């Protein structure tokens, strides 16, 4: 699939459809989880009065991955929404991880390293 010179057409249709599906499924699953949590939340708190005017930050359990997983498992409505948002953030990260594998298949060491650098920054940011 590589041309005679350094010009590389990276258009393998199978890979593209895998990447496309990965992104689509990631977003749809995330949206479904957010929606489920949202329905739970509105069923429990729909009659309350919202307050987003003053910045107070979020309770600690909604700010760390273990806290989010625990509260989502306990079906805490806000925890479920937050889990959906974590899945959403993880979607482009999964794409970067997959790209590292693609470059690995092509034995392109430079780009495997570039991709792993980006991946490590993203994982560091997500896990805190």
């Amino acid at each position, binding site marked *: 699939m590589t041309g005679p010179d*350094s010009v590389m057409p990276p258009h393998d249709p199978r890979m593209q459809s895998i990447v496309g599906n990965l*992104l689509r499924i*990631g977003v749809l699953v995330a949206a479904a989880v957010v929606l489920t949590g949202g329905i739970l939340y509105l069923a429990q708190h729909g009659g309350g009065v919202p307050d987003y*005017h003053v910045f107070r930050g979020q309770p600690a359990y909604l700010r760390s991955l273990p806290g989010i997983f625990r509260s989502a498992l306990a079906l805490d409505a806000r925890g479920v929404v937050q889990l959906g948002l974590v899945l959403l953030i993880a979607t*482009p990260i999964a794409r970067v991880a997959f790209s590292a594998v693609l470059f690995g298949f092509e034995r392109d060491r430079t780009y495997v390293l570039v991709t792993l650098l980006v991946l490590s*920054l*993203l994982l*560091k940011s997500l896990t805190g």
Partner: protein
Amino acid sequence: MNTLAFSATIGGAAFAAGFLGSLTGLGGGVVVVPLLTIVFGADIHYAIGASLVSVIATSSGAAAAYVKEGFTNLRIGMLLEVATTFGALVGAWLVGIVPANAIAVIFGLVLIQSAYLASKPRSDHATENLAPDPLASRLKLDSTFPTERGEVRYHVFRVPGGFALMWIAGVLSGLLGIGSGAVKVLAMDQVMLMPFKVSTATSNFMIGVTAAASAGIFLHRGYVVPDLAMPVMLGVLSGSMVGARLLFRTPTRQLRILFAVVIVALALEMIYHGLAGRM
């Protein structure tokens, strides 16, 4: 207004933002932050958190369509992602330091600039027959893209300049909670002389990754409020999906002018609120 009514109103407004963002090509984020802060009086930190999450949703959704067409240049995207990711981390750090009023003013200025960039007519640079750039060749950035007359080869130039501008795009993305697609396209299309469709598709791929870099930090800082992010993300995502379907019919000139007026009005409102110290 109770929480149910408030969520429904925000969801509806976010739908409109996603729709507008997708039709203008500016993305939902640029409308979400002014909407949440000015119209709904939300704290700008919450607005930026909710906006950034919706940016990931729309860009990943759109990227799924782009990859199939074969325009995305994965090497360029990943290389420049080093710059935007570092920038996004700096931007997310700045959000905690820069006063809310200053963020509002910067937001307004960037919004006007983005709207201006997006409104300019585009024509592709013919780089097919130019001598390749040594650095771009060494990094294997030159590639081909599909056109009506088959695969056309393009060369990439001025990699360091594009890289530097991408760093700025990353900072703006993290600081303002937007995808900063306009600056990313500027870096590839104008600085690196890449074909417009390749620039747009590659920018779209990068937007989600850049946003994910600062979204993680926002999550740990407590800027991502589930109750607010929920209607915003679902609204913007569905709005942009509907907008993307309509995009195949090119919007009329009147519609474009209407969009431009809305965007500039929002931008001026942000600047005014910031200068008046109301954020």
